């Protein structure tokens, strides 16, 4: 991060200073403009959480006519179980999923990207196939399966598949990145007598921080945002996740607390945003910044 701007000065040595300044102003201008477009809906959501209930659907302005924290208090205890419980459940499931996905998917990806074995292409194709079938039709057979093992009503159907690399997206992602790591490194390590495990652990993983961080971020956010899995497998309100809690706020046929819904929606964004901020600095480490020479 620190040396990148320095390099730019070297690269741009022949361009005059004023032109660089102007370019910088233009790109910041563009980015700020785009950010506002991106952000407006979120600001509206934030405003809605502070608004009086009967103003929510009639006003498009960002500034509420009156400010109130009521919705937050109402929402937090609005369902039979406090949102604190839902947050805890979401944390447990999301963190466990991150650990499982990063471990299991990187193992499988290493095999597909770097090791030679018979049947590799067939297994890879089968793995990709699992991505292509809409989940709606495997839902019931899978439910029956988990029920036979006795896992319905627990977090296990939501977590265990992650430790078994069931999400082919991440395997494929890591394969693409692992293949970009120069082969000479493996070969040199092999000369020194390193086996596949050592190469995986000492070379591939350390050089793959960006993609592992990407996988961690996506897993956390997508698990957090998922509501269909929890909807189907969790029956007791004390096991509900935040997303399921939010869905329960709105019943299309009856009375719904929209203020509470928006307040809790805002709160539900906080952990995933913080997680993103924490891990995003890892996104920029890697070959480019660790100064790898080819």
């Amino acid at each position, binding site marked *: 991060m620190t040396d990148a701007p320095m*390099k730019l000065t*070297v*690269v741009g040595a022949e361009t005059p200073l004023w032109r660089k300044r102007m370019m910088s102003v233009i*790109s910041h201008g*563009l*980015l700020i403009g*785009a*950010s506002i477009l991106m*952000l407006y*809906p*979120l600001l509206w*959501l934030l405003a809605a959480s502070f608004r009086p209930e009967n103003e929510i*659907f009639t006003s*498009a302005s960002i500034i509420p006519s009156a400010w109130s924290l009521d919705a937050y208090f109402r929402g937090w205890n609005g369902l039979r179980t406090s949102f604190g419980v839902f947050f805890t459940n979401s944390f447990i499931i999301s963190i466990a999923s991150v650990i499982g996905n990063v471990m299991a998917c990187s*193992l*499988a990806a*290493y*095999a597909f990207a770097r090791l*030679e074995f*018979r049947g590799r292409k067939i297994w890879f*194709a089968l*793995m990709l196939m699992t*991505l*292509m*079938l*809409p989940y*709606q*039709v495997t839902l019931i057979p*899978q439910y029956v*399966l988990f029920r036979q093992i006795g896992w319905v009503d627990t977090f296990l159907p939501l977590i265990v*598949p992650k*430790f*078994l690399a*069931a999400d082919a997206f991440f395997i*494929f*992602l890591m394969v693409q990145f692992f*293949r*970009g790591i120069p082969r000479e490194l493996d070969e040199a390590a092999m000369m020194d007598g390193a*086996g*596949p495990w050592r190469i995986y652990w000492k070379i591939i993983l350390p050089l793959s921080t*960006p993609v592992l961080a990407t996988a961690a*971020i*996506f897993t956390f*956010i*997508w698990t957090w*945002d998922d509501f269909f899995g929890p909807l189907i497998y969790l029956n007791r309100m004390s096991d509900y996740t935040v997303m399921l809690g*939010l869905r329960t706020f709105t019943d299309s046929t009856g009375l719904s607390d929209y203020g509470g819904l*928006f307040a809790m*929606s805002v709160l*539900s*964004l906080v952990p995933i*945003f913080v997680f*993103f*901020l924490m891990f995003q600095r890892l*996104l*920029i480490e890697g*070959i*480019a*910044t660790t100064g790898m020479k*080819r």
Partner: protein
Amino acid sequence: MTVQNVATAPQAGVPKTSVWRRIWQQDGPGYLFLLPWFIGFFGLTLGPMISSLYLSFTHFDLLTAPRWAGVDNYVRMFTNDPKFAASMRVTMFFVIFSVPLKLAFALGVAMLLNRGMKGLPLYRALFYLPSLLGASVAIAILWRQIFAGDGLVNKFLSIFGIVGPSWISNPNYSLWTLIVLAIWQFGSPMIIFLAGLRQIPQDMYEAASLDGASKWRQFWKITLPLLTPVVFFNAIIQTIEAFKSFTPAFIISGGTGNPINSTLFYTLYLYQEAFGFFRMGYASALAWVLLALVAVFTAFSFLTSKYWVHYDD
């Protein structure tokens, strides 16, 4: 099995074992690394997939046992189902427009953000925010605020004296509002592009600029070729996801696919058939037709990839 062989291999010297040993040395590590995936694939994934394939040849109403139907479901789909045709058209349109636009947008912003400028982490976070919202109920409400008849877009247009329609509920435009939503949530391909850009060794650019190569030339000669594995990944994944796209249409149309089926995505139709109308057999057949279609597309992409995707190996 293979683990046992490893234990017995050292003390055995008969030729038969050495065959096993050769096999182990060649294939063993690969299969060991794949072990968790194999357990998951055979234990959790494959069974339900085969079940759904079987169900696609039955009439299954969820509540009573499936009845064998042969190829009835598939025949009906291609001969006597206007909604199948309509949903296929909607989905194709969505894929063709949303995927390239989203990827171009994601790549453009990633390039802009990769210039080592000040405030990079902040912008990156801001641009990712829309994707954080996922499929929250709030999205449906937000999108109405923007694209309804008295929404923001029309307020903006009215400055120029233009009276716009209610974009979100007009059958001519409603699909476009979903395409805009897909593009707006461009965060994940952007992050993947950024990670890919970071993997390109900086010294290549230094060498190129010393040779007097312009920025434009550097992009075509260095950035794009070295980024192809990531471009390839994003293109494949985004296409598969777009074909399977369900939640945006579900929350915005309230699960109906209206107006006039203009947002009846393929998987939304499949979901209606499965859970709304109790036709899981037919829904399974729909799913396997989609799988076949996406598989052909993916296989084709992999076949052509050797001509344009640049791996280091």
